[in-house]
């Protein structure tokens, strides 16, 4: 019985052992250490970005994308040129037609005048 009471007392004393606790503080020059950490983190961010970019998979994907864009642009330009050429040719043909009409008309006119 006494043992049980002793245990109860010890438990209560242990639960109250943090009463009057003083606040702990980090070591001196904490702010300086923090500044060093912030600087390191900033450098790490840049180095992690550069290491991400220079990863073989990322680099290859990036270069392939740029090449693909170039090829697409080339095809688009080529197609654009062809359509432009076709429309130019159409224009030329229609002008030629007009010219032949004009020239045949003038021939006709000349002939009628001669008569």
């Amino acid at each position: 019985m006494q043992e049980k009471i002793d245990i109860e007392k010890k438990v209560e004393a242990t639960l109250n052992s943090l009463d009057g606790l003083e606040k702990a503080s980090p070591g001196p020059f904490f702010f300086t250490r923090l500044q060093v950490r912030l600087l390191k983190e900033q450098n790490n961010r840049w180095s992690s970005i550069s290491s991400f970019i220079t990863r073989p998979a990322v680099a290859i994907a990036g270069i392939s994308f740029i090449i693909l864009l170039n090829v697409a642009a080339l095809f688009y330009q080529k197609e654009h040129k062809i359509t432009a050429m076709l429309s130019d040719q159409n224009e030329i043909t229609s002008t030629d037609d007009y010219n032949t009409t004009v020239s045949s008309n003038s021939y006709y006119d000349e002939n009628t005048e001669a008569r």
Partner: protein
Amino acid sequence: MDERTLVEQLKSGDQAAFKTIVDTWQNMVYNTALGIMQHAEDAEDITQEVFSQVYQSIHGFKGDSKFSTWLYRITSSKALDHLRRSRRKKRFAFLTRLIGENNETMENPPDFHHPGVVLDNKEQAAVLFKAIEKLPDNQRIAFTLNKVEGLSYQEISEVMDTTVSSVESLLHRAKSNLRKWLKDFYRETIE
């Protein structure tokens, strides 16, 4: 200078304001982290992480709660993350030891002695911290904030983003769990 002005100055990139913030709240953050982690180096590491986050995400602080409440929130979540990581590591080390890949013996961490404990209570406080380690995470946070930081139930509810009655119930369960563990502990030491 009041905290709102300090926060505004930090938002505009004032380094002096950041130093004042760190000087004002470093003990509070460190003491909380130490209470939860029970390891001085980890607590220092977490304190640095907390202020690093404050520096980088001060624009995320809208001022809906007190600045200290925001700091307590960051500290407790970072400490919990740290604890979970170290538990995972321990579990992994245990598994590799079972498999036989790692022949190192697992060492039990030494008793934690909080530097702010009254000298007469040193041994009992070490036993209590050992018992606190066994508590579930949210009970551990609530109990530490109450006993180590001396926060009221209302303040704890703001930090943990819950109701006062939930905090009461958390602390009640924490104390009864601790009582149970301590009783077993003292019974074993007597035997």
